[in-house]
C-alpha cells in the first residue's frame, strides 16, 4: 500500500519530526525532558510553527485531504489494504497480549475488549476509525473482533488531517459516541508528548491527580498495541533516524505489548512495482506521481535491526538481563502483502522483498 500512500503522509511524518526539533532542545533527549514544553502550548500552534514544511507541500496536501475518504480517490488502495491490517493484528494477538486476563488459548470463553491502542501518524484516520468501530459500547460485553480494542488514541502532527479525521468520525454515531466518552481520541500531537504524559492517555488522568506536582517523572507505558502503518518509508534517513523513532514507539508499549507496522522494502521488484508501474500515467498508474521515493524504502532486515537496538534502548538500563538477550529473544513477525488489480490485497508469505510487507515485534514481558 505504501506504493499508494499519497504525499500527505511524508508531510505528516516530516511535520512530526520537525515538530520534534522545534520543541525540543535536543532530539536525543526529548524523552527525558518533558518539562521543557510549556503545557500551555497548544497542538495547533506547534503544528503551524513547523517551518520546514514548504507551502508547496501544504497546498498539495490540502488538495488531497478532501479526497482522503473518497473511496475512489487517491487513497483508494490504502482503504483496500485496511482490512489486512486488522487481520495481521489479530494474528499477532493470537500469540499473546500484554493483558494478563487474555490468554490466547481461551477460545472457549469469548474475551472482553481490554487492549489500549496507539496509532502513530494516523493521517485522516483510515485505520484509527475502523479500529474504533470495533470498540464495544458496553465495555463488559464480549469483544466483537479478535483485535480486542478497548480504546484507541490516534495522533498526527498535522492539524488539518486531525480536523478532517474528527469530522469524518462524526458521521458514524458509534464512533462519535466513543469520541464523546474518550474511548477514542484524535490528538494533534507528537509521540514524544504522549510519552512525556503531556496529553490525556488511558491512565494518565488518574496518574496526574495523584502526583500533579512532578510532571518530570517518566510515566509508565500506557499501550498494549502501538501501530505504525505506512510511516517508516517516509522518514528521511539524512535528517532523522528510524531507530530513535522506533525506540520511542517501543517505550510507549506495556511489557508484552505489540508494535505493529507496515512499509515497503527497497529492492528491484519494489522499484519496478512502486516507481515504474504504480506511478505510471493513467490508466496504468494508481498513485499520484512523486508519492514515494524508492531510496527511503526500508528492508525487513533493517527494520528488524532497528527494533533489536530499539528494544535494548527501550529497556533502558537492562537491569535484569543483558540487552543482547533481549535482542535474541525478540518475537518478530513479518509477512509480505501484494496488491493484485481486480482481486485486491493478499498476504503472501515470502513476498516481503517484492514490496509491501507487514511487520510486528512483541515487547518482552
Amino acid at each position: 500500500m505504501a506504493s499508494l500512500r499519497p504525499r500527505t503522509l511524508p508531510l505528516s511524518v516530516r511535520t512530526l519530526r520537525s515538530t520534534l526539533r522545534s520543541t525540543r532542545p535536543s532530539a536525543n533527549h526529548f524523552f527525558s525532558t518533558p518539562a521543557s514544553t510549556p503545557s500551555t502550548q497548544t497542538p495547533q500552534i506547534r503544528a503551524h510553527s513547523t517551518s520546514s514544511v514548504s507551502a508547496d507541500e501544504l497546498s498539495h496536501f490540502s488538495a488531497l485531504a478532501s479526497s482522503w475518504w473518497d473511496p475512489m480517490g487517491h487513497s483508494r488502495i490504502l482503504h483496500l489494504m485496511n482490512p489486512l491490517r486488522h487481520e495481521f493484528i489479530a494474528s499477532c494477538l493470537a500469540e499473546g497480549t500484554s493483558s494478563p486476563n487474555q490468554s490466547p488459548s481461551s477460545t472457549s470463553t469469548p474475551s472482553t475488549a481490554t487492549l489500549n491502542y496507539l496509532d502513530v501518524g494516523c493521517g485522516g484516520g483510515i485505520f484509527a476509525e475502523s479500529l474504533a468501530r470495533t470498540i464495544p459500547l458496553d465495555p463488559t460485553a464480549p469483544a466483537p473482533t479478535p483485535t480486542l480494542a478497548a480504546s484507541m488514541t490516534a495522533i498526527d502532527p498535522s492539524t488539518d488531517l486531525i480536523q478532517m479525521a474528527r469530522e469524518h468520525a462524526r458521521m458514524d454515531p458509534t464512533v462519535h459516541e466513543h469520541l464523546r466518552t474518550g474511548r477514542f481520541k484524535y490528538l494533534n500531537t507528537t509521540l514524544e508528548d504522549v510519552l512525556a504524559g503531556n496529553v490525556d492517555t488511558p491512565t494518565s488522568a488518574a496518574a496526574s491527580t495523584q502526583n500533579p506536582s512532578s510532571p518530570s517523572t517518566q510515566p509508565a507505558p500506557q499501550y498494549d498495541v502501538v501501530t505504525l502503518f505506512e510511516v517508516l518509508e517516509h522518514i528521511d534517513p539524512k535528517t532523522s533516524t528510524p531507530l530513535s523513532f522506533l525506540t520511542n514507539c517501543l517505550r510507549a508499549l506495556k511489557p508484552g505489548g505489540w508494535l505493529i507496522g507496515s512499509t515497503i522494502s527497497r529492492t528491484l521488484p519494489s522499484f519496478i512495482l512502486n516507481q515504474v508501474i504504480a506511478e505510471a500515467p493513467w490508466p496504468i498508474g494508481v498513485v499520484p506521481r512523486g508519492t514515494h521515493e524508492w531510496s527511503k524504502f526500508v528492508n525487513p532486515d533493517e527494520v528488524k535491526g532497528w527494533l533489536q537496538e530499539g528494544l535494548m534502548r527501550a529497556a533502558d538500563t537492562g537491569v535484569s538481563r543483558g540487552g543482547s538477550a533481549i535482542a535474541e529473544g525478540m518475537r518478530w513477525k513479518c509477512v509480505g502483502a501484494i496488491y493484485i488489480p481486480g482481486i485486491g490485497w493478499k498476504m503472501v508469505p515470502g513476498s516481503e522483498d517484492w514490496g509491501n510487507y507487514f511487520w510486528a515485534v512483541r515487547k518482552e514481558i
Partner: protein
Amino acid sequence: MRPISGAVLRPYVCPTCRHGISAGRRRFGSKSDSPDLYDVVCVGGGPAGLGLLAALRASPITSKLKVALIESQDLRKAKAWDLEPNQFSNRVSSLTPSTVSFLRSIGAYDYLDANRVQDYQDMQVWDGQTGSRISFDWSMETSPFEDMRTVATMTENANLVRALLRRIADSGDENLSLFSNATVASIENGSDLKPEGPDLSAWPVLTVKPTGPAAETETPKRIAARLLVGADGINSPVRSFADIPTQGWDYGRHGVVATLALAEPATPPFPASKRTAYQRFLPALGGPIALLPLPDNHATLVWSTTPENAAYLKSLPTPAFLAMVNAAFRLDMTDLTYMMGMQSSSSDSTSHQAELTWRAQHTPLPSQIPPPATAVQTGTVASFPLRFRHAAQYISPRIALVGDAAHVIHPLAGQGLNLGLADVASLSKTIQYAVSHGMDVGDLLTLERYSSERYLPNAKIGGACDLLHKMYNVPGEGPVAWARSLGLGFVDRLPFVKSFLMKNAEGY
C-alpha cells in the same frame, strides 16, 4: 446517485402518502428530532428481505447488529400460514441446490414444511416446433447406485416465507424490530445533529407509517439506517430514493399459473422417487409451458404466453382449461393455434377435450410427456406480466438493492428467486466481513464487494433467459428454428457442455 449533502434533500415520498406526509411532517418530524439508529434496515418482507434478516441473525458476527424490517403485509398472518395437505398455493418457486445449501447454512431450511416441498431429478425440455429435445438429468454424472442428484426443489413461496419468519423469531427479539403492516411514508437524508450529536446527513432516514386501523392511533416512527437494503420489489421505493436508474422492457407476455392434479403416470418412475419437470417451447403461442412437480402427484403450471391467450385461458371453464394444458404438451403448433381460438361456453365445456382427443389420434406423441392433468385446484388460475429489469447499479452510499429491486428476469428458467437469495447470501457475507474488519457496513468500500460479486452473474443469467425467450418466439420453420434444434441437439449430445450448462443453472 443521490447527492449526499445536508443542504440538498431529495426525499422519496410514495405517491399515496404524499398528501398525508406533507401535513404530518410538521407535527412529527421536526428536524431536531434524533431518529432511532439501526445498523441494517430492510424494506420488504419477501423471501429476499427475510432471507437477509435470517442470515444476519444466524451468523455470530452479525447477530448483534441492530436490524429492522418493514413490510406492508401482515407478517403474523404469513407466519401462521396454513393450507390443507392436498392444497397448494399457486405462487411456487424452484430452489436450486446452491439456494438450498444457503438456506441450510442459515438454519432456515429445516423450518420448511417438508411435506410440501418436492425435489425433482430430471427435466425434459423440448421445442414444440421442431421436436428437438434436451433432457437435464444427472444420470451421466452419478452412478446408478448413488442417490440421484436433485436438479431443483419446488416450494411454495408462502412455505419459504413462513420458514424464514420462524427462523428469525427463534433468534430472539433482541436488537430486532419487525414493522409489520407498515409502509415507508418517506425516505430522506438525515441531518447534522450539531453540536452534541453525530452527523447523519449521509444517512437515510425513513418515516415508517402503520397501515390499517393502527394508522389513526400510532404515530409514524423515524428510523435512520447505517445500511438501507431495498428488497422492495420491481417498483422499489429505496431504488427511487437512491436515484438509481433501471433499464429493461416488458415482454408483452403473461405467465399463467395454476395448481394441477395429475393422473398416475402410465409407467411408474424408476427409481420410484424420481420426479420430472417438463417444459415445452411453443413458438406460435408466445412462450414455453412448464409443469413442475409438487408432492402427491400435483404440479404447478407456468405458461408464458401473450396477454390475449392468457385472458382466453383464464376465461375457460375448468375442463376446457385442462384440455388446453394437456394439448399444449401434445399437439403441434397448428392444432394449438386453432384450439386457442375456439369458442367456449359453460354449456359446452367438453368441446376442447373432444378436439384434443380427436387431434391427438393424428399426432405422433413425443416419448417423454407429463401425465395428463386431471383437476385444477379452485381459485389458483392467475396470471402476471413478464418483465425484464436491471438496475444500473446495486449500491449507493448506505444503500444496497437485492432481489427484484435489482433485477427482474423472464421466469422460463425459474431463476428469479434463486438470484435474489444469492444476492442475500453475498450481501450477508459482505456485512460479516465488514463487521469483523471494522468497516462501516454502509460504506461504498464495503458494499462494492457485494456489487462486484453479483452484478455480472445476474446480468449473465438474466441475459441468457432473455435470449432463450427471443429464440423461442420465432414461429414456423426457418433458420432460427433450424439453429434452435441444432443448438439443443448439439448440447444434448455433448455431455460436458450439458454438464456445464446444468451447473450454471443450478448456481455456484
